[in-house]
């Protein structure tokens, strides 16, 4: 890379260090933290605003509608209108609600959603905190979302919100396991829990092809499992049982209105971006370019391009699939995803100990394909439901 392109790639890092030069030495650690955190806290809510309008327009087009096209040019100011609307709405707290917990739930959720960005490598040398247990930190903070969901559902003192919260807990705990197990293969391959190291391991090239973990049999399976579990973790269609508009209206945040509702909405999308960012970090090489001849494009561009691609995939899936039933959801998690992710770990182990070459590819692919087919056969059985007869009904 030539000098100018390196400067462009590192522009934010350079600017940060230049700004830090004006700060007295004693204040430098705290100012450094603020300078790292503020752009992230601005960039991702901005991405949230873009995503909402993208999603509404995309879903509209999938249903042969226009989507929002009134506010601003082609409806791009729609998120602003939505924001103003939710800010000016009355904040209603149910009389019987646990006031303190009811207030804390959205706050905890937003804090948890923002905290996970601390370990997301957005670009080369662009990470808020390079923790040596970054992956562990990510999953630990990610579990806080479950806590806030249950706080919201329980404190609202409403049937629907409690139902939603219980569904959310059941679903999120079930899918947390395949999510973590799918990322274990990456930790095995990289030999590190640090997200920065994981990305650096993938940033090399063979010819023009990158060393992404996606391009291995266990990487493909791991990526697919991770994305499915991430969809379930972020409560998105087709795993939106906790919200289920047609059944329990809005689920755990049914009793929230105004800006608190907007906070839940924001946190949900931030959670989705964070898990997508982690999927990019684990399997899609983080900020590294997809081909060796494209490395001159700044690293943060590649990160956000990959993130937007995954967001579009999420929207596409949301526009396509109907909501799953609770038993389908649970069967899928425990009978398919969990065994498959365990076998995937075995596959990754075999891959690690076999010499590089086509034999390795063949053996691991065969193992994973076979288990995939067998497990899906198992999933198909016992699907028959009968009309229930009640012996004492008549």
């Amino acid at each position, binding site marked *: 890379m030539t000098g100018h392109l390196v400067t462009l790639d590192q522009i934010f890092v350079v600017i940060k260090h230049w700004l830090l030069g004006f700060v007295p030495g004693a204040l430098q650690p705290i100012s450094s933290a603020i300078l790292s955190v503020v752009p992230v806290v601005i960039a991702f809510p901005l991405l949230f605003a873009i995503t909402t309008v993208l999603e509404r327009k*995309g879903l509209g*087009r*999938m*249903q*042969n*509608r*226009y989507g929002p096209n009134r506010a601003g040019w082609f409806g791009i100011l729609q998120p602003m209108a939505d924001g103003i609307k939710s800010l000016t709405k009355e904040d209603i707290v149910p009389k019987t609600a646990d006031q303190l917990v009811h207030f804390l739930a959205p706050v905890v959720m937003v804090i948890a959603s923002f905290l996970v960005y601390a370990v997301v490598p957005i670009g080369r040398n662009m990470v808020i905190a390079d923790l040596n247990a970054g992956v562990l930190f990510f999953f630990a903070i990610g579990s806080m979302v479950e806590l806030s969901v249950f706080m919201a559902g329980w404190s609202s003192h409403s049937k629907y919100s409690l139902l939603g919260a219980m569904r959310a807990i059941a679903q999120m705990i079930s899918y947390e396991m395949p999510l973590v197990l799918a990322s274990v293969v990456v930790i095995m391959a990289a030999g590190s829990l640090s997200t920065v190291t994981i990305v650096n391991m993938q940033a090399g090239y063979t010819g023009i092809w990158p060393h992404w973990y996606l391009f291995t049999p266990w990487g493909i399976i791991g990526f697919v499992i991770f994305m499915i579990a991430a969809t379930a973790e972020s409560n998105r269609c087709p795993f939106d049982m906790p919200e289920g508009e047609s059944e329990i209206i809005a689920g755990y945040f049914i009793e929230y209105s105004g800006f608190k509702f907007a906070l839940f909405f924001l946190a949900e999308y931030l959670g989705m971006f964070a898990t997508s960012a982690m999927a990019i970090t684990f399997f899609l090489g983080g900020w590294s370019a997809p081909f060796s001849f494209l490395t001159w494009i700044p690293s943060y561009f590649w990160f956000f391009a990959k993130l937007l691609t995954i967001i579009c995939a999420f929207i*596409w*899936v949301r*526009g*396509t*699939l109907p909501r799953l039933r609770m038993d389908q959801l649970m069967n899928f998690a425990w009978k398919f995803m969990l065994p498959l992710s365990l076998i995937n770990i075995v596959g990754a182990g075999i891959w690690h100990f076999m010499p590089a070459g086509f034999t390795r590819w063949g053996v691991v692919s065969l193992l994973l394909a076979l288990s*995939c*087919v067998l497990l*899906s056969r198992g*999933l198909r059985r016992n699907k028959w439901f009968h009309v229930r007869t009640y012996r004492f009904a008549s």
Partner: protein
Amino acid sequence: MLGEGIVKGLAETARNFFGSYVNKERLTTVQFPEERLPQIEATRDFPFLVYDGADPEPGLRCVACQICEKECPPKCIYIVKSADKKPDATGKAQFYPAQFDIDISVCMSCQICVEVCPFDAIKMDVEFEMSSEDRFGGLLLDKYKLAKSNEYYNKIHPTEAGAVDAALAEERAKAKLAAEAKAKKDAEIAAAKAAAPAAAPAPAATPAPAETPAPAVTSAVGETK
């Protein structure tokens, strides 16, 4: 295979997504204020009063019979009958509504007033963009706001208005003929009365010609209805 249906579904939504950009026929949305669908002929929302001719004041068909006021289920019509009579479109002396108000925020668009009106004076309008910040100024319509010409009625409901016009023309022609026949008969009787007793007393003959037009008119009204 597992996931086959998902792939099919994804292909379908992708086809819809790109198709909606290529083929405008796919988008069924009508962008309302700019684009409008033509209204079907049976469209109706609130009643209005029909007048013949150019001026609503003398041309109003309404004779303030108050049947619609009595029949209106939500009682949104308020009529004050005039004290005097004035000639209607056919030139006949009739009462007219001194005041005719319809509160369209109360009106339920049931069309009963239209069905009971014996004079085809009240019909259903198609105007719907009537939202207003002024409850009484904007939604309590007086007779000047309600009066709309027969041409307008012909424009919004052509078939119905054509039938009404034909029926009215026929009735008017019949009434005119009857009036003429009556007038002729009365004139004959009067002439006979005047001719036969040549030496008849003058006071008996004088009131007869003066009174003849009035009974002729009443009989005409009787036939029309």
